[in-house]
């Protein structure tokens, strides 16, 4: 089971994307779990997920987040276009690839 954490400023717009990603996960029967958190709460979650995806509007937090996860898991910024289009499939594909490459 892969746990994917999406983070944005208030956790609102990422929760939109998460909803769509969960649908894809259910449809394709993928072994994954997706959730959204605002930046303020992200710290409490990063220890039990497999990847952190930042909304592009908080992409500037990447450096901080990488320090926080301490090299244990990959941190990536979601592509602006994919984010705007709420392209759940593409975001999931990229997330799986990033986790794969990270090993």
């Amino acid at each position, binding site marked *: 089971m892969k746990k994917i954490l999406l983070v944005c400023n208030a956790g609102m717009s990422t929760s939109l994307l998460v909803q769509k990603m969960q649908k894809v996960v259910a449809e394709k029967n993928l072994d994954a779990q997706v959730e959204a958190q605002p930046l303020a709460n992200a*710290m409490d979650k990063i220890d039990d997920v497999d990847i952190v995806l930042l909304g592009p509007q908080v992409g500037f937090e990447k450096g901080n987040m990488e320090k926080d996860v301490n090299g244990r898991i990959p941190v990536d910024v979601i592509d602006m276009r994919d984010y705007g289009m709420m392209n759940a499939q593409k975001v999931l594909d990229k997330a799986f690839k990033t986790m794969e490459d990270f090993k």
Partner: protein
Amino acid sequence: MAEETAKEKKGRAFLDKFAMVAAKVGNQIHLRSLRDAFATIMPLYILAGIAVLINNVIFPLFMKDPILTNAQVWGNLLVNGTLNIAGLAIAPVIGYCLSKNKRFDNPIAAAVISLAALIVMMPLNTEATLASNADKTAMVTGVLTFKNLGTSGMFAGIIIGLLATEFFIRISSVKKLQIHLGEGVPPAVEKSFNVLIPNLIVLACFGIIAAILSVAGNTDLITLISKMVQEPLRNVNTSLAGCLLIYSVGNLLFTLGIHQAVIYGVLLEPLLIANINDNMVAFAAHQAIPHIMNVSLVTSFGLIGGSGCTLCLMIATLIFGKYKPTKDIVKMAAVPGVFNINEPIIFGYPIVFNMALMLPFILLPVIGISLAYFATSIGLVNPCVVLTPWTTPVFVSGFLATGGDWRAIVLQLVIVIIGVFLYLPFMKVSEKVTARQMALENEEA
């Protein structure tokens, strides 16, 4: 796109530099903790808004004195537990957030020390209003007053919380101050002892400062911060010009793909919240409303459909748009857009790095906020007195924020109509550019 003129290149380099600096500011750990702390404590203020609304708008609809006065005790007590302790509550929360962000392993201890440090700084004797005669005040001792604990003490809470936590974390990392009880002592016991000495040092230092201020200066840090930091900042940043400037810089940042909270959440929002908190307290007490500019005015009239009032862009696109892909995005973004969540529009339409739409995105909130400000100051609409969540849909938000003034709905409608026509020409340009880009991409592919 290939041939950029030298001027365009220069402009782009400037914007990149600006975005980088702003991101660095947003990344700064104390400012980030400030934003986190406000995000955590916001529900308390929103609850206060609901209580004030029920107390002062709903109850009077079907109650008369003396029942009304008795019923309103309920809302007044809720105001005490929320707005009147705004400073008291923010200190431990910001201490907690800072130590979390610093990955300090004992954040709850930092929260406790922040709270204690704030109280240490409170004056020994303070002015209080007499219960028997609201016009009369007296110097009292042995009490903490809402004046110091509430909104006017908010910056004191923030600054003292940050200082105490920073100091505490630094001292805690000094190895020599840690107590080792030897083998066989459970680590938890040792941990509890290790908090002891840093606790003592931090509070002792705060106590010394408080004592000097009290004895030599006949003052206290809460008053000093309120007078020398909070009030000047509030006067400048929440003036119409200051607010518009900071808000526009935040929105400019958003058009570069960085969340406007980086600027707004640090320089403006805390002060605008302080203003609405003051207004809510005044409204609950049937007093004159002190601040025209506040967070509810900004979100109700400058954030219609999200930053940049993009609801107007969506309407313009749906009615006048001819390019199907953007229309499809607008349809997808419609429901979140109603609740003022517009990242799909910002990144999907897109607005980021879309020169055509950057101008109305920044300009429209300026128009909306200015109109609301002038309409309020000449009495066309009631001032905003209730903190509404920024996710409240347009028309509902104006009505609730002004404590139930229908004219606020009319004003919002006016702004929406202006906005649709302001976005319209820029939307047309953007459509043409996007269509041409797509065609080029398809040719290449």
